[in-house]
């Protein structure tokens, strides 16, 4: 009984959140709508990292490549298979998920830095592969056109607002689904993998298989985020998924707490807002060429280091203690 109502509470929260976002979308200007769409997309991508690292304890430096797989799958579905854009986003998630599953199976025996190295190598090599096959459009890439907002929304409904709606709702739905998953038996299994693999194995968990599943799920989420990204920039090309994107996602995950999903929206906001704030500080401060150009990078990195030094477990740390108490209570009632 207790468990069911927790799920219902979560569903209600997400529905309220969705409603709030739609209302917000009406009030903010076009630029903020566009940026908001990016926030949602990054939040989703960060969620994929949290799913993989915070929940199942695997470190990936290559999520930019997984996003790219989803992005190309989505773009190809629209252009070559002429699918509906919404279906294309689902295809993006599925294809990336399957790719991630295969990768996860191959990498199941790899621990910590070895997995990290593999994903790093994947991240730098996948974009160049896109240039090998003409169907992938080379450097110019493939167009990804989500289409204009439906006519019934009226004249005033801008393209940016449409982006905002699609991005936010896609992210919301996906994060809700993951959240449910993580509060179920799946989540417990993943956390067992993270905390103590040997013990998990002794408890009868097929460690290799579960690790691969976690990887596949994480990849699917990343693939959807990749599809959203190329929707926002209206097309996919290899250079849209540089290694630095992987690092940014990790940064976002750490800054907002790698252990649970609550902070992802804040993480997305950080990834969008901080570079822009740094940019504007940089342009206001004078000084030599080298100084003004390097300043934004400096500020972003400094923030990152401060966050790691002072909030290594993210602002959600305090909440974790509270939730642990709740969880223990739930466990006791089993």
């Amino acid at each position: 009984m207790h468990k069911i109502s927790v799920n219902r509470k979560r569903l209600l929260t997400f529905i309220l959140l969705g409603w709030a976002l739609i209302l917000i979308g009406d009030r903010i200007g076009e630029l903020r709508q566009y940026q908001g769409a990016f926030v949602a997309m990054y939040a989703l991508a960060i969620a994929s990292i949290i799913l993989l690292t915070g929940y199942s304890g695997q470190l990936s430096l290559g999520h930019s490549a997984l996003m790219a797989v989803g992005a190309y799958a989505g773009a190809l579905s629209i252009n070559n298979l002429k699918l509906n854009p919404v279906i294309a986003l689902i295809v993006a998630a599925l294809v990336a998920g399957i790719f991630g599953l295969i990768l996860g199976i191959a990498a199941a025996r790899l621990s910590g830095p070895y997995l990290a190295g593999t994903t790093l190598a994947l991240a730098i090599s996948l974009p160049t592969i896109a240039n090998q096959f003409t169907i992938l459009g080379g450097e110019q890439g493939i167009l990804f056109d989500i289409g204009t907002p439906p006519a019934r929304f009226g004249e005033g409904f801008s393209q940016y607002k449409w982006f905002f709606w699609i991005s936010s709702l896609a992210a919301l739905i996906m994060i809700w689904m993951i959240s449910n998953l993580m509060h179920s038996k799946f989540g417990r299994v993943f956390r067992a993998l993270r905390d103590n693999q040997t013990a998990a194995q002794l408890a009868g968990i097929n460690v290799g298989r579960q690790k691969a599943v976690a990887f596949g799920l994480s990849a699917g989420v990343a693939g959807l985020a990749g599809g959203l990204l190329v929707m926002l920039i209206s097309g996919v090309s290899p250079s849209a998924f540089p290694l630095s994107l992987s690092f940014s996602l990790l940064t976002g995950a750490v800054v907002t707490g790698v252990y649970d999903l609550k902070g992802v929206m804040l993480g997305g906001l950080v990834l969008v807002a901080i570079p822009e704030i740094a940019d504007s500080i940089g342009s206001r401060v004078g000084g030599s060429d080298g100084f003004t150009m390097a300043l934004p990078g400096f500020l972003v990195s400094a923030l990152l280091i401060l966050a790691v030094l002072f909030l290594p477990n993210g602002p959600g740390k305090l909440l974790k203690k509270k939730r642990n108490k709740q969880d223990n209570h739930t466990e006791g009632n089993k």
Partner: protein
Amino acid sequence: MLQFITAILTSLSAGAIYALMSTALVLVWRSTRVINFAQAGQAVLTTYIGYEVTVRTGSYWYGLIAAILSGALIGATIDRFFMRPIFKRIKSGPIVMIAPVVATLGLLGIIQAIIGFIWGLSYQTLAAPVSTDGYKISGTVIAFSPFNLMVLLSVTITMVLLTILFQKTNIGLALRASAYSPEIAKLSGIKVDAVRTLGWAIAGAAGGLAGMLYIPNSYLYPNGMDVLLVFGFIAAVIGGLDSLFGAVAGAMILGFAINFVATYVSYKLVFPTAFVILILVLLVKPGGLFSSSKGRKD
């Protein structure tokens, strides 16, 4: 035939440089369990310092010494004042894996920004101390110059010195013990913290040497060693992160694979080759080629 010889020679040269980077990464990994992405920034920074000394004194050799010494100093400083506070705050869980990675990434960004502040964003060149023209063997010029020879010799000497240090000296024993089991090492009276900082210093010095040996064949700019870091990391993983010998072996394997595939197949496949080699090795040996089976639990 000449193409084949060239491929071998260029692979050796490339592998040697990767070896220095992978060694530095392995040194830090063994002592702190951290993948130090800031290595790319440290190495470039120390090369800038070496460059300034070279320009002012007119001698590459003074610059080299400056780079190695400043590398050691910067490495030690980073461990003492940056990594140590971080580890004090992070004790357990997956955050132990990910937070230091992100922290070193942040550090990389800061170092590159500082370089931009001081030296601007344009490219500099560093002249090699010996000729970079290829040796002439019975009328044909081969892709191996006195400078390539110097690089190969320097790397070999460095690896020999490091091996002697680790296997034959007390300090080396302390370094290995602290990495293998810090608690027991502490009980034996080893100052684990100081020893760890020494490990970072040696890694920093190796990075400084790497930069001064690499940059004459490339260009000096803030992002100048980013690609090298990626290859160095992949090489270290191929060889097994716990093994210095593995670091060199992995670097050579990677160097040969990349150069041969590029020469005989396609230049477009440079990065995918690295990935394929890596995954082939790890499928067979998940801990890298030369990882010891009784390593410390990760």
